[in-house]
């Protein structure tokens, strides 16, 4: 299964990549990161770009660092790079919990966090976690750099705020080192993508939920926060009853008529899955919240 023919350029700097995007503006041009969404799409003919600009080896897009309580993850870090970073696990527990469930070992050794977020696949595992982590996506283009909050980045299926000559350069996440982060997912039995995935980021003090951020992907055409679930959690004791009640609010503010609906799962089924997997993400949070206390 060969992709259609295309021209390939390897960029060595962000500026060079932006220049290449501008030079090839008249062609159908795609940025190539790890290629684990793009290459399968090209092989099946869903995508036939004329030009690929490889940014996978641009040094400035790598590295994970903590700066003033903010975790910075270069866009071209592979999933395995992020999981291998103690800083990322400590400061972005919901994001790393979601990354652990992406694809499989080989996919995580090759796919990138930036490629995932910029591709904006609604069934990807990261949009919900990016939202609950309050991530900011930093992009660079011909007019310089700008920062886009995750909740303003996604427009819909495969559609983002990224301009035609802009590149996602890094993801900034405010430290959530005091929170527990979890992700629960119903994978498609064939592709492994999320039919529904729920990310949770909670701070819990003495059994009481102080703050709660819950986000979902797979259910709608882009990641969404589940505000009513969050409201039902804050101030309550994190127990079975609270969790069951909160999870029951998972679809309250979603237009269920617009839920993703395909051969694998109807919108109605997804709505049901959303409640179940919200519950599972919260149950996992109970387990994780208990773990550090036991170690003290």
């Amino acid at each position, binding site marked *: *299964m*060969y*992709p*259609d*023919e*295309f*021209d*390939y350029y*390897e960029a060595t700097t962000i500026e060079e990549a932006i220049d290449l995007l501008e030079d090839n503006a008249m062609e159908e041009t795609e940025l*190539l990161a790890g*290629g*684990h969404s793009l*290459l*399968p799409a*090209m*092989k*099946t003919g869903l995508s036939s770009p004329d030009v*690929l600009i*490889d940014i*996978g080896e641009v040094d400035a897009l790598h590295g994970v660092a903590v700066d003033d309580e903010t975790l910075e993850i270069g866009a071209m870090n592979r999933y*395995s790079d992020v999981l291998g970073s103690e800083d990322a696990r400590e400061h972005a527990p919901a994001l790393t919990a979601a990354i652990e469930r992406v*694809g*499989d*070992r*080989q*996919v995580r*050794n*090759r796919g990138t966090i930036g490629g995932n977020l910029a591709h904006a696949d609604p069934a990807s595992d990261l949009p919900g976690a990016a939202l609950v982590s309050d991530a900011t996506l930093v992009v660079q283009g011909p007019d310089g750099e700008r920062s886009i909050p995750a909740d303003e980045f996604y427009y819909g299926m495969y559609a983002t705020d990224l301009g035609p000559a802009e590149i996602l350069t890094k993801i900034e996440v405010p430290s959530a080192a005091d929170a527990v982060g979890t992700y629960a997912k119903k994978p498609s039995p*064939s*592709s*492994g993508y999320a039919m529904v995935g729920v990310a949770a980021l909670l701070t819990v003090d003495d059994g009481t939920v102080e703050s709660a951020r819950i986000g979902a992907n797979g259910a709608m055409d882009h990641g969404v926060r589940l505000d009513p679930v969050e409201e039902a959690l804050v101030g309550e004791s994190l127990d079975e009853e609270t969790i069951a009640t909160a999870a029951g609010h998972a679809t309250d503010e979603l237009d269920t008529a617009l839920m993703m609906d395909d051969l694998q799962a109807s919108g109605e089924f997804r709505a049901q899955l959303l409640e179940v997997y919200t519950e599972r993400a919260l149950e996992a949070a109970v387990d994780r919240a208990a773990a550090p206390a036991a170690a003290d």
Partner: protein
Amino acid sequence: MTEHDITLTVNGTDHELTVEPRTLLVHALRDELGYTGTNVGCESSLCGACTVHLDDDAVKSCTVLAVQADGATIETVEGLAEDGEFHPVQSGFQEEHGLQCGYCTPGMMMAATDLLEENPDPSREEIREGLEGNLCRCTGYQNIVNAVENAADEMHAGAVADGGCPADAADGSGSCCGSDAGDVRWPEDGGESE
């Protein structure tokens, strides 16, 4: 469309070749360089039959462009055996009948060696998770998990023979340092062995 000159170091041998941008790494390995041990399965990054190590990490070579791998070090299944001796993962698959038709086996073994490098003493659950990107249509996976366990024990025993593991920790389980997370793996590093 411009062709590209690339260099791949495969199982220790440098190769220079000219490829179209759309040439997939698996096709460069098989069709251009003759490393046909790597199989092409689903071609959609699901089955793992094409798994090779790219700069020491297991990847699906049907989802990597050969140009992306320019300058990289590749290890294929042909590189596992040394001096005519099977790699412990290969012996494990033989001992435990970890294959029937054998089509998935090269990919399984490359994924397994990657797993064992990161986690030399995996639980059965961890082996299953480590191999979730590889599909087998014959075995039902049971013997594949046995094979990887066998390989882990074998590699561990090799490490002991090389003085890499304290012999007094032997517990007769076949895994001299124990496999429970609570066990102290290297008693001389402090702590007590239970």
